[in-house]
């Protein structure tokens, strides 16, 4: 390496730090330090009022025991995984499809885009309450829809078809799927917008060239759109995993973890332990177990979707 090259590298590094400083300063202060404080607390017994008492790995050992006994933390892990598996693939596929449709240059796209984004704009608490209403077993729109549907079937099939009304959120088997459905609905516009931004980054001339070469739209998608959207997909995937693993507000409002612990999630457990039981240390330990799990998953995701820096030929 020549002296000039190292000098340039040094200059580049210095510039980089100049760019990073304002953001990172705030970040260290309000994100990293609190995270480290929480890490410290995860090795302590801390009830908010009294000084934290160091208890080593006790909190983690307790979590291990809970998992091996299939206790409530184990259930929350299981439910959170169910939620993630239920929301992420479907949600992402729908969002991509929607972004492509909305991007196809139709009239009235503005209206569609806005409509699909509407649920994101509305506060999650208000949205959860409205959905509780939709899910209401006797007076809810959903069971009303089922009733209309079975009436229609009766007419078509010429004999009485009865789809019994469901109890949705009050049924241990249906509660989690109900929350998943609502969450997909709510998150769709969000991911759609990110995909839209990603689609804007693909230069038009690539498609023009492909069209001249006679590539079908389907071929264009797999040859151009999908590979060039890889960084966007990786981003949405990582963000979705993080978001799903921290699902809380809709659970808190709609079921508060019930019925029979069917919807309690990791963050619901963290919330309970931190603020109801005042076991800040134990709650922090849960948070770091969660962290370890998602971090691993994210690393795998980012590795699998490597090749973010695409060459444009």
């Amino acid at each position, binding site marked *: 390496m020549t002296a000039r090259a190292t000098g340039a590298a040094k200059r580049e590094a210095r510039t980089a730090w100049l760019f990073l400083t*304002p953001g990172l300063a705030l970040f260290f202060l309000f994100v990293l330090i609190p995270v480290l404080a929480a890490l410290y607390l995860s090795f302590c017994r801390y009830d*908010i009022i009294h000084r934290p008492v160091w208890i080593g790995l006790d909190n983690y050992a307790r979590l291990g025991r809970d998992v091996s006994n299939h206790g409530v933390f184990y259930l929350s892990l299981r439910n959170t995984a169910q939620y993630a598996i239920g929301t992420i693939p479907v949600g992402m596929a729908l969002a991509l499809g929607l972004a492509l449709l909305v991007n196809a240059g139709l009239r009235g796209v503005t209206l569609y885009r806005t409509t699909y984004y509407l649920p994101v704009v509305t506060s999650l608490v208000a949205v959860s309450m409205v959905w*509780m209403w939709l899910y*209401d077993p006797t007076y809810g729109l959903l069971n009303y829809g089922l009733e209309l549907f079975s009436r229609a079937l009766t007419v078509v099939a010429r004999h009485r078809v009865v789809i019994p009304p469901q109890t949705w959120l*009050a049924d241990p088997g249906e509660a989690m799927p109900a929350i998943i459905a609502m969450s997909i609905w709510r998150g769709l516009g969000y991911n759609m917008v990110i995909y839209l931004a990603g689609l804007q980054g693909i230069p038009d001339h690539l498609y023009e060239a492909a069209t001249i070469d006679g590539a079908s739209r389907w071929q264009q998608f797999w040859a151009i759109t999908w590979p060039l959207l890889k960084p966007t997909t990786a981003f949405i995937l990582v963000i979705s995993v993080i978001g799903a693993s921290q699902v809380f507000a809709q659970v808190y*409002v709609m079921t508060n973890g019930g019925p*029979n612990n069917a919807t309690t999630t990791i963050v619901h457990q963290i919330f309970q332990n931190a*603020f*109801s*039981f005042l076991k800040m240390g134990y709650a922090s330990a849960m948070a770091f177990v969660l962290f370890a799990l998602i971090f691993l998953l994210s690393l795998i995701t980012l590795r699998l979707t490597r090749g973010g820096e695409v060459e444009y030929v």
Partner: protein
Amino acid sequence: MNRTRIVVLFALALLAAGLLSGCTHRQGPVELELWIADFSSDGKTRELLDKELIPAFEAAHPGVKVNTQYIPWAHLDEKLTISFAGGVAPDVFQVGAEYVGGLAYRGMAEPLDDRIAKWGAKDDFFPASWSTCVYRGRVYGLPYLSAPRVLLYRKDLLKQAGFDHPPETWEELAEAAQAMTVRRGPVFELAGMNLPVSWQVFVEFLWENGGRIFNEEGTRSLLDSPEAVEALQFYCDLYHKYQVCPTSGMPVAGGGVPVFASRRAAMEIMNQFGIYNVRKYAPDLLPEVGIAPTPKRKRRVVSVYTDWLAMSPQSKHKDLAWDLMTFLMEPKNLAAYNATMFFIPPRRSAVAAAGFMKENPELQEFVRLMDQYGQSLPAIPEWFEIRTGLQSAVSAAIYGTKTPEQALRDYSRELDALLAERVKR
């Protein structure tokens, strides 16, 4: 050039942040902070406090300002926790029926025995309400509103089913509920008894059967007792054997109209909100609503849930905070506050002073039953954990994941471990 542009932008951002932080605390009048967590959703409670009670208090205490904050129940715990952690707890704050043990044990509520002795109004409060604020013989607050849970039943339906009096025992309860239940296939058109899956219902059955959750000292679980198993078995039987209600509980209609008021249950155990709802949604039903003590097994119990006002030990103005508490407890003020929400004032003279208690004769019955059979939750620091654990155990038994005996044995062991962990202070 470009670099200067960034510098300028950055400076602007800093300037903005600097300007925004310009607000400083002024040295002014003495300020008291009051947190109200129970308020009506139509704004009446806030109007009463903000426009009448607090101005009256401030007028009587020149130089004192009260900052009233309305904290949503769902986030009260977070707000309380973080404020105590930061050393900025409110001077006076409202909490619920399960709080006294935890607050007292951690030093988050000021013991008030000496002040109360001087005040001399203790005997005016209903004993079941009062005991909500007592932990190990010391008093940590004043009861602000009460809600006794009694048996509500439909007189007309009961008569149709051939009964001449409301059920007084568990056997009669099961029999009457069964007789009144109307089902079409798996769908309940009328539940003989509205039963949510709830630890509160189990605790009622447990008490009626002479059982207890834990021992007097709060050091050992008593949930593996035969009384407890019997109580949970009976609770499960109402769903599975007598089939008087679906295991999901009768759903609240239309996201808002409660079960009993929407005529889809013949009986329920409910506080005075049961009456409130009938008045609101089905006023013509009111003459047919009967009120009775909850049926007994070994003893008669009416469980009472009371929300109360506590004083923070971090308060810098404890005498004033006490003045504010006792001011809000004055019979007239207490009655006015409870009237905005249809709660029972926990104080006899306030009940007597309250216009809405006279206009709603049914409420007098609630008061009588509360006075005669009332019992509040026993105080223990771990109530929130116990509540959650009990809920899990009860649902496991009702949804059939475990037998009642197994569910209680498992949870009893867990509870013993939890209680053994309590650090001596």
